[in-house]
């Protein structure tokens, strides 16, 4: 009780009118929980701490947020959560402009096929609102899940800031780095357990696709096929010292889906995607990029994580921190979002 009263005192917090000065981000996926604590320093953020914790299970009190906070001494008042689900519902909906003002919420609900048990959020780029069909981005999540995480955060005496799906986080980040310029450009994020494919047309995303497959799954299959342990598989995967083309056959559907997306852009939107920008920790493997290039028959351009984050993060981003890519860019969005306004 006393703790709850004390938590209401403002001196425990650290925020100004632009946003929090200190933030902890939890990336929750089916295997583990990634935690990053960041501080804001002028117009950049400083990575203070990165942690890899067991899976955050709402049912199990030992792996609740309050337990994590206590056991690992996570010291921050503001908390953001990113959900990395196997099946994420983030879509681009083409809504006629007439629907924008009247009843956009109902239209989005209908197009997403959601019922009352789902929480749906949507947003659209107002600069695109002059066209006849406006791309509206919508994400949905079971309502009790969103509320459950919120309660967890409040129980851990933290202030909830944002709950995002990893796809929408990636979408926002790619929107920043894509810019205008070319007609069509595509970005493929290869994370550990998920990957996101976004196609841009003149600085606005036209296609968003989420895959529940990441480089971790590739490594699992390598372990199974060659009998490596995990560390060895990781080493060989990233140092490009071994040919894994046989084990990559399992992931043919993954690359095939990417090809379908490319085709969709060509047939329906009448544009050609010439290069694919690949980033994320999975793109560090030359072997992976080569096999991707041979599959989709497009030029593959590898973007370095440290270069991507150089504008926002103070200091170098090393390999270990690149794994926390989604957490870092979520924090960047929350902490530096207010400064740019």
């Amino acid at each position, binding site marked *: 009780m006393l703790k709850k009263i004390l938590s209401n005192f*403002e001196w425990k917090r650290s*925020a100004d009118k*632009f946003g929090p000065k200190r933030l902890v981000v939890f990336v929750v996926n089916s295997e583990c929980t990634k935690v990053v604590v960041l501080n804001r320093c002028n117009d950049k953020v400083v990575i203070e701490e990165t942690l890899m914790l067991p899976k955050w299970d709402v049912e199990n009190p030992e792996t609740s947020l309050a337990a994590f906070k206590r056991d690992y001494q996570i010291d921050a008042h503001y908390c953001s959560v990113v959900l990395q689900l196997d099946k994420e519902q*983030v879509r681009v909906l083409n809504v006629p402009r007439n629907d924008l003002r009247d009843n956009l919420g109902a239209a989005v609900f209908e197009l997403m096929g959601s019922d009352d048990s789902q929480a749906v959020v949507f*947003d659209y780029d107002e600069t695109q609102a002059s066209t006849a069909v406006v791309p509206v981005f919508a994400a949905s999540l079971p309502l009790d899940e969103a509320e459950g995480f919120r309660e967890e955060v409040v129980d851990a005496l933290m202030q909830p800031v*944002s*709950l995002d799906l990893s796809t*929408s986080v990636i979408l926002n980040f790619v*929107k920043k780095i894509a810019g205008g310029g070319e007609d069509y450009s595509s970005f493929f994020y290869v994370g550990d357990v998920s990957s996101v494919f976004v196609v841009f047309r003149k600085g606005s995303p036209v296609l968003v696709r989420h895959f529940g497959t990441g480089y971790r799954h590739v490594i699992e299959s390598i372990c199974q096929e060659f009998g490596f342990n995990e560390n060895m598989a990781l080493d060989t995967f990233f140092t490009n010292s071994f040919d894994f083309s046989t084990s990559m056959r399992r992931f043919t559907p993954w690359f095939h889906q990417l090809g379908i997306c490319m085709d969709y852009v060509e047939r329906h939107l009448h544009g050609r995607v010439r290069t694919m920008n690949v980033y994320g920790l999975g793109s560090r493997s030359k072997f992976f990029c080569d096999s991707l290039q041979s599959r989709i028959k497009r030029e593959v351009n590898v973007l370095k994580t440290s270069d991507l984050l150089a504008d926002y993060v103070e200091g170098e981003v090393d390999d270990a921190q690149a794994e926390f890519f989604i957490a870092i860019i979520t924090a960047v969005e929350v902490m530096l*979002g207010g400064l740019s306004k």
Partner: protein
Amino acid sequence: MSLDLSFWEPPDWKRETRVNPLFWVFVAVVIGVGGLSIGLTVALQRATELGAQHDMYKIDMARISAQYNGVEKSKKLYQSIEKGVLLNLRERVARRRAMAPTLSKLFKMVNDDIVFDALSLKGVETVGQKGASIKSMRYSLIVSGTVFGTDSEDKLSEFQQLFKDEEQGFGESMLSSEVTQIDSSGEESGVAKTVFTIKSEFKEK
């Protein structure tokens, strides 16, 4: 512009923004300590001041009680009162009586042309020497009257000289003498009149 696809409402950062309350606590402590120290300094200063005053005007109760309780002391007090008040009064009356013949003798010697209208003699008590039981007296004499005849100034100066005379008048004990001629008229009709007032002061012989 980034898309807002968060399922939670972000906190209102303006409401979260406040001056750190620790700062106000610090300010309050500084003011409190400062006020206390000033107050204590003033109180101490006042106390020492009062103590010094108390020492200066200390009333020796032991002495006073001894003085009032003892029979001899009360006798002495009575004597001092008798000496200072009653005897003094008697002596003053006696002195005035003694002065009266001198005055009446003086007025007989005055020129016939001077007619007195009024005379007042007042004893004004002066502060005498410290420790003297009877204080020396000072008198003020105001005489007003009319001078008949033409040479009124000569007659009046003659009258004043008479007062200052060593043997019959007051002599050196006369302190001052001032003549005020109020009106002089009737020179044309043959009977000249001058109304005058003389204020003079003298101490006892």
